[in-house]
């Protein structure tokens, strides 16, 4: 059979077997609201000295600098007590197959507030709405620079209604910046399944309702790179997984 080149991954995935020996069949339709009792949770940490974040000079726009009595620092590596690492995208990178999943109706929201992106790292599904809100009294421009999706660049003056858009292809992760305020940087991860989470300030993450199966789990950090772990999810178990980044390649 002549298959377009892009479909060959599915053949590999159809050979993936679960712990009980049953194959993850191709094209199984699992809607995202099918609750299973199995899943994955854990913590991401940074071992060793965290790189120092730099102080941001907001002099380019007095509206921004006036908002902060103390100057902000960059947020490339956000580390809490005991090395807890925030803003890490933890996701299923292999084994999710091409299940048909419903796209969440709720949009993922990025707010421009205090002349920075809140949150700095967001993740959403292919086709899911992304809503960009400007809560500042200054004009921003939102400029995602994807490798695998469309590049666009829209300005948003104060009081302009939220910009709603979506992304058509998987990409981890798309850098987004404001060219007017060059310290504003963020990342948008686009996945074609719902099995992802972003670590909070305590480094914790939960992948709920992950069906039993063999998976590769990847932890992505904007500065520290990626870590991979194979896991086997069995029915009715919340698997514990830890990721530990090392501050390599960080000056």
């Amino acid at each position: 059979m002549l298959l377009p080149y892009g479909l060959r991954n599915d053949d590999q995935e159809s050979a993936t077997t679960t712990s009980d020996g049953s194959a993850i069949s191709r094209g199984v339709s699992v809607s995202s609201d099918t609750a299973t009792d199995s899943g994955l949770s854990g913590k991401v940490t940074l071992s060793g000295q965290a790189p120092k974040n730099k102080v941001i000079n907001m002099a380019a726009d007095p509206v921004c600098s006036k908002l902060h009595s103390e100057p902000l620092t960059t947020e490339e590596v956000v580390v809490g007590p005991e090395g807890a690492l925030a803003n890490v995208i933890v996701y299923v990178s292999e084994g999710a197959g091409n299940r048909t999943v419903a796209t969440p109706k709720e949009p993922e929201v990025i707010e421009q507030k205090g002349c920075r992106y809140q949150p700095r790292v967001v993740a959403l599904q292919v086709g899911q709405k992304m809503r960009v809100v400007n809560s500042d009294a200054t004009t921003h421009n939102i400029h995602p620079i994807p490798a695998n999706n469309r590049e666009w660049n829209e300005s948003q003056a104060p009081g302009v209604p939220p910009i709603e858009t979506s992304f058509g292809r998987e990409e981890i992760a798309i850098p987004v910046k404001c060219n007017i305020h060059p310290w504003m940087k963020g990342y948008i991860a686009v996945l074609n399944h719902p099995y992802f989470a972003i670590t909070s300030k305590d480094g914790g993450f939960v992948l709920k309702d992950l069906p039993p199966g063999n998976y590769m789990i990847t932890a992505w950090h904007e500065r520290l790179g990626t870590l991979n772990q194979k896991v086997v999810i069995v029915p009715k178990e919340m698997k514990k997984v830890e990721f530990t980044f090392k501050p390599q390649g960080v000056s």
Partner: protein
Amino acid sequence: MSISGVALSSLLFLLVVPSFAQDSRIGSLTGDSKRGKKLYQRYCIGCHGQQGDGLGENAPYLEPKPRDFTIGTFKCRSTPSGSVPLDIDLFNTIGRGIYSTAMPPWLPLTRQQRADLVAYIKNFSPRFREEKPGTPLDLPQETPADNDSINRGRELYQTTIKCATCHGKEGHGDGPSAATLTDRKGDPIQPTNFSTATRFKCGESNPDLYGVLMTGMDGTPMPSFSNSLKPEQAWDLVHYIRTLRPDWHEKAKNAGAKR
């Protein structure tokens, strides 16, 4: 993929590609990819490269770099930011050139030849096969370029929509964020200096400037202001930007004298 699979898919590739070849429509002209390819290899390949990736043999010596056609992202469009351009947009860019870059106006080529080039260039990116261009910009009647309009434009430029942050208070291209700007490939890029620019990258007329404000210049830090500006505000801004040339007062006086 097995060896036979590779052989099979390259066979498939050979079979399929000719039928995928793009054409172009410029008014009553239809551009032809095959003819465009010959012209491309004669006139464009030195900078834009065999593969259309902007890595031609002259590319290392050019700043800014030649357009990489494989990503399907173009500066001068009548379509919204993020959309592929219309055929006529590419046709106009070839004929106009891109002022302040190494891209010359290709007026020695006939209209038919330029249309053929548009057809061929569209084959480098799958976006032209997969996506429809967005709705082109509506060009409303220009408002009067009077003092009130210029003053409103100044307020927008200096304060409300922050043009000055990159283009500078006096339009010298030296705003506080100017030195941080990069294009999508990470190469440094300079904001247009309005005090010396006699021409602009996407055309010289007021409607051309209006178009850049409302569609942005994709692949660069220049955003589209279509969300932030009402049409009459965009005209105000165009009128103010015109005043940033030091000889503007002379010109305005001469224009007045002629009438």
